[in-house]
């Protein structure tokens, strides 16, 4: 069993127009920038993928990664908790021009909805957002005298994640707080593609230390020195 792709372009080749794509990371930490840029490369060469629904905590920063994906007009809808950043202009302008749709979800609810998608739980109840406008139109129920909002699972066709080490079976570890949404998104997508800083052979990772078991990963690709969104933005980068 070898789930490794030889190239970034090969790794993102299967993503179709109209797909729902989860992109890991919290801001730049844990954001799979190289995989995201590979989607842009393919779009610029072929016109696909487009009309994407993207799930991410944020809405991009500056002109790289997710922001660049939005800037190139590839994103139809964004499901996120916090569409602000140091430089959120790309999203903001498209949103105010009604060129992109936004589904705003509280951060913990977003995480739990993604986990639920991965765990086969179609709906759950949470106290979060009860009594607020983000609960409008949702089923409300009481348990033990307290009010809760029913939330639905969130699934995706693809998840793109950034991991630290990965073996050819797809077992993954992460670097520090770059873990964030990545392990959850691995669970919730039909096809999860991970970029890893080091690709190793099965057996090289201690079974006790694996954060994402390989069953949740369908493909991986080595990006030995991944870029950090924060540093790219400080340098005023834009993609391509």
């Amino acid at each position, binding site marked *: *069993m070898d789930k490794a792709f030889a190239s970034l372009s090969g790794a993102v080749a299967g993503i179709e127009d109209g797909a729902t794509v989860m992109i890991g990371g919290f801001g730049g930490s844990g954001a799979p920038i190289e995989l995201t840029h590979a989607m842009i490369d393919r779009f610029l060469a072929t016109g696909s993928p487009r009309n994407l629904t993207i799930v991410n905590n944020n809405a991009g920063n500056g002109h790289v990664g997710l922001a660049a994906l939005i800037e190139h007009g590839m994103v139809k809808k964004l499901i996120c908790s916090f569409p602000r950043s140091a430089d959120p202009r790309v999203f903001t302008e498209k949103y105010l021009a009604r060129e992109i749709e936004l589904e705003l979800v509280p951060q913990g609810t977003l995480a739990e909805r993604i*986990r639920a*998608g*991965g*765990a*086969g*739980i179609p709906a759950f109840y949470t106290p979060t957002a009860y009594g607020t406008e983000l609960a409008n139109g949702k089923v409300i129920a009481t348990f033990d005298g307290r009010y809760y909002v029913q939330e639905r699972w969130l699934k995706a066709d693809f998840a793109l994640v950034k991991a630290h080490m990965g*073996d*050819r*079976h797809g*077992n993954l570890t992460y670097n520090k707080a770059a873990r964030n949404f990545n392990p959850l998104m691995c*669970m919730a997508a039909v096809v999860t593609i991970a970029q890893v800083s080091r690709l190793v*052979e*099965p*057996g090289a*990772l201690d*079974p*006790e230390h*694996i954060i994402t*078991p*390989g*069953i*949740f990963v369908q493909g991986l690709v080595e990006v030995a020195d991944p870029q950090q969104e924060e540093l790219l933005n400080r340098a005023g980068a834009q993609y391509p």
Partner: protein
Amino acid sequence: MTLKLSNAQIAWRAAQDIADGAYVNLGIGFPEMVAQYQPPGRHAIFHTENGILNFGEAPEKGSEDWDLINAGKKAVGLKPGAAFFHHADSFAMVRGGHLDVAILGAYQVAENGDLANWSTGPKGVPAVGGAMDLVHGAKRVAVITDHVTKDGKPKLVKRCTLPLTGVGCVTRVYTSLAVIDIQDGHFVLREKLAALSLEDLQAQTGATLHLSGPIGDLVIPELSDD
């Protein structure tokens, strides 16, 4: 001439349908035998619901690690690429549709895909374990079983009379006499022992066997049943 497959032979037949690299959960007991009969060159990854992916053979007697057991509470070993996880993650794999196939035993399987394999009725102490979870979520839920009970009654039935484990969940049954798919609420015969007539097989089956395309011969090598 084979009149009926041994358990090992049923397990062998089921193993032929498991693809290389498939993620597989084998039920406790008889289904565990399936792991022994993977065709050469194919390597499935076995999941045990207590929290291991890619476990393998037990170490020698006396050198077991009793923290390293499978769902049947037998000592196991690890293969390269194994991973540990807690029960909620383990059943996320099960319920979330991440397993390619689950192979389970059965008391009864109905033509509508219902399965009864956890309880023989209200007496004694009821125990369910992971059976009701495993029948949901795996992309394919298969059953391996003798074709009839010890006293000759059909185990493949029109409707289950024993307490259900799951509703409409089984898609293929490997028995001691035949391989039968469940499609659109019907048993569809795929393979049977060559020596057995369709009439004889039907007589030992509690619901109509439908035909759809050619019936293969169920040919299995001689295997010892231990």
